C-alpha cells in the first residue's frame, strides 16, 4: 500500500506545498507568541468587555436572572 502512496508523491504541485507551508508557518508563529504573552497582559485583554467606562449604573437594578 505504501508503495502506491509513495508513487504518487511526486505529483503534488508547488501550489499545494506552498499553501501548506504558509498555513503551518502562520499557525506556529501565532501559537508561539500566544504562549509567550504575560498573564498580566492576557488578564487585561480578557477583561476589556467588562470595563466599558459607563458613568452611571442604571437606577433599576438590571438583573436578567431569576431570583
Amino acid at each position, binding site marked *: 500500500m505504501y508503495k502506491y502512496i509513495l508513487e504518487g508523491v511526486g505529483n503534488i504541485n508547488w501550489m499545494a506545498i506552498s499553501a501548506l507551508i504558509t498555513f503551518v508557518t502562520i499557525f506556529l508563529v*501565532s501559537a508561539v507568541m500566544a504562549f509567550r504573552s504575560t498573564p498580566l497582559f492576557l488578564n487585561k485583554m480578557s477583561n476589556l468587555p467588562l470595563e466599558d467606562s*459607563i458613568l452611571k449604573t442604571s437606577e433599576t437594578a438590571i438583573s*436578567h436572572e431569576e431570583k
Partner: protein
Amino acid sequence: MAQVETFYYDNAIVRKFAYATMLWSVVGMLVGLIAAFQLIMPELNLGIPYTTFGRIRPLHTNAAIFAFVGNGIYMGIYYSLQRLLKTRMFSNALSNIHFWGWQAIIVMAAVTLPLGITSAKEYAELEWPIDIAIALVWVVFGINMFGTIIKRRENHLYVAIWFYIATWITITVLHICNNIEIPVSATKSYNIFAGVQDALVQWWYGHNAVAFFLTTPYLGLMYYFLPKAANRPVYSYRLSIIHFWALIFIYIWAGPHHLLYSSLPDWAQSLGTVFSIMLIAPSWGGMLNGLLTLRGAWDRVRQDPVLKFMVVAITAYGMATFEGPMLSIKSVNAISHFTDWTIGHVHIGTLGWNGFLTFGILYWLIPRLFDTKLYSLKLANAHFWIGTLGIAFYAIPLYWAGWVQSLMWKEFTPDGFLKYGNFLETVTQILPMYYIRALGGTLYFAGTLVMIYNLIATIRQGSFIGDEAAEAPARIASDGVHKGEHWHRWIERRPIQLLIASAIAILIGGILEIFPMVMIESNVPKIASVKPYTPLELHGRDLYIREGCMGCHSQMVRPFRSETERYGEYSKSGEFIYDRPFLWGSKRTGPDLHREGGKYPDSWHYNHMVDPQSMSPGSIMPPYPWMLRDEMNLSTLPRKIEVLRMLGTPYPEGFEDEAVADLKKQAAGVAERLRKDGVEDDKLEKREIVALIAYLQRLGTDIKPKPQTN
C-alpha cells in the same frame, strides 16, 4: 496621566438595528415557513409566478442571512465596538446611511426576487444594481468602523474587533469577485466566469459567506456579549488569538466541499476536503472558549435565559462545525450531497448558532438600552424551550429524510437494476419527514413571536437611553515599543496593519485555488462537440433561471453507477464551458436534469410544466401555467449575444442581428412538433414554454451522438 474625557455612546443606531433585526426575523422565518409548507402542500404555490417555491426560496435565504443576521451583526457591532474602544462611532451620518441603505437593499431584494430577477448564484442572487448598492453601503460601514477604530481611546484591540475587521475585508473581496458581471439590461447580467470556474468561484464565495458573514462576526459578538452576560472574562485569550488566525486562513479553502464528486478537478476537491477537516480545530477552539467561559457558573445558566440561549447557540456552533467537516469527507458526501441532510446541517447553524445567539443578545441588550428589566423571564424561558424543540423537530426529520432518499437513490435489485427507478417514489417516501420539519419551523417561529411580544413589552415599560455617558482617558498616541513585545501585541494596536495582514491571509487561499482553475486551460478539458446555446435555448435557460428551477433540480450527474443508470453519462467539465451562470444546483427535490435532452417528447414537457401532477401523479412541483400564456420578450436578446461573445462564447460576429430570426425559426420547429401532438394555440411559437422546452431538450445532448432526424 492622559486627560480624562467625557463622551457618549450612540445607542440610537443600536436601537435602529435592533428593531430591524426583530422585524426581519419575523419576515425571514415566515418566508421559510411558507417554503416548508409549499413542499407538503403544493397548492400554496398559488399558481402565480411571484410565489412559487423556486422564487420564494432565495427570498428566504437572503432574508434570513442578510436581513435578519445582517442587522443582528450590525446591532452587535455598533454596541460592542464603541464600548471596547471607549469612543463613540466615528460618524452619526455614516451610521444612518449604513442603516437606511441596508434596509433599502433588503426591500429591493424583496421586490426583485419574487419577480424572478436573479443571477441564480446562491446567496448572491441579487442582480447587479443591487450588488453595487451593497458595495457602497458596505464601504460606508467600513469607513465608519475603521474611523471609530482610529479615534479609539483604548489602545489594544480586543479579539472581537479582529473578527469584525476580518469580516469586513473578506466580505469585500468575496462580494466583488463573485459578482463580476456584465449588464445586459437593468435587471439582467452575465457573470464573467462560466461552468466549472463559475462553480468554484461561487462556492468559494458561498462557503465564505457562511464563514465571514454567519460565523466570524458572530464569534466576535460571542466574545463580547457572553462575557458581558456572564460577567466574567473569556476563558482563554491565548486560545482566541490562535484560533482567530487559523480560522480565517483555513476557512477560505473549504469552498470546494460543495462540489465533491462534481466535474470540478480532483485536486481542488481534495483541497476542499482537507481544509474543511482541519477547520474543526479552530472552530472548536472558538466553541470551547465560549463554553469554558462559563466554567463554575453553570448554575447561572440554569436561571438565566440569556445564558441559556447563548450556551445552546455555542453548542449548535460546535455541532455544525463538526458535522460540516464530516460532510466534507467524500465518502460521506457521496451520500449527503443533494439531500435534505445538507438542509438540516444548514439549519443547525442558522437556527441554533445565529438565531439563538441573536435572541440571547436581544434579551440582554433591549433592557439595557431602555434602562429597565426584561418584561417576562417566564416568557423568555418559554421561548427558549419552544425554540430548542423547534430546532430538534426541524433537523432530525431532515437527517432521516436525507438518508432515506439517498439510500433509495442508490439501491439496486439483485438483477442489477435500480430499485426505485422513478425519482418521485423517493420524494413521496420522505413527505412525512417534511411534515415534521414544517412543525419544527412553526415551533421556532412561534418562539420568535413570543420574543417579539416580550421585547415590545419591555420597550414600552422602559425609557430609552439615546446617548450613554462614559468617561475614559484619551489615548496616548505614540505608545512606543514595549520592551520584549511580541508581534501580535504590536499588531493589535495597529488596526490598519491588522486589516492588511488579515487580507493577505484570506487572499492566499482564494488565489491559490482560483487562479490555477482560471489560468490553466488543462483544468477544463475541451470537448469539441460542445457548442454555444442557440438563441432560443439561451432564452429558455434564462427562463429556467427566472423561475428558480435550480432550487429543486440539479444539473450534475455524479460518477456513481446509481446516477449513470438513472440519468445517463456522468457530467464532464467541458460540457459547461458556455454556462453563465453554472446551474449545477445544490438539492434534488426533483430529479437531475443534466441529461434531460431527448428523454421525453416536447409535448411531455409542455403538459408537465402546465400541470406536473398530470404527468407525474403525486408530484410536489408547482404548476407554471403562465409560461404557456406569456409571450417571449426578445428585446434584450441581441444584447445578450453581444455580451456573451464579449465574455468568450464563440458566437459569430454580427450574429446578434440574426439572433431573433434564428430563434423564431427554431421556435417554429418546436411549435410544429407540439401541434402534431395535439397542442392547440395560434401563437404557440411565441410562448415562453417553447424556449424552455428547447433548452430542456438541449441539456446534456452535446456529448451524445446526433440523432438522424431533426
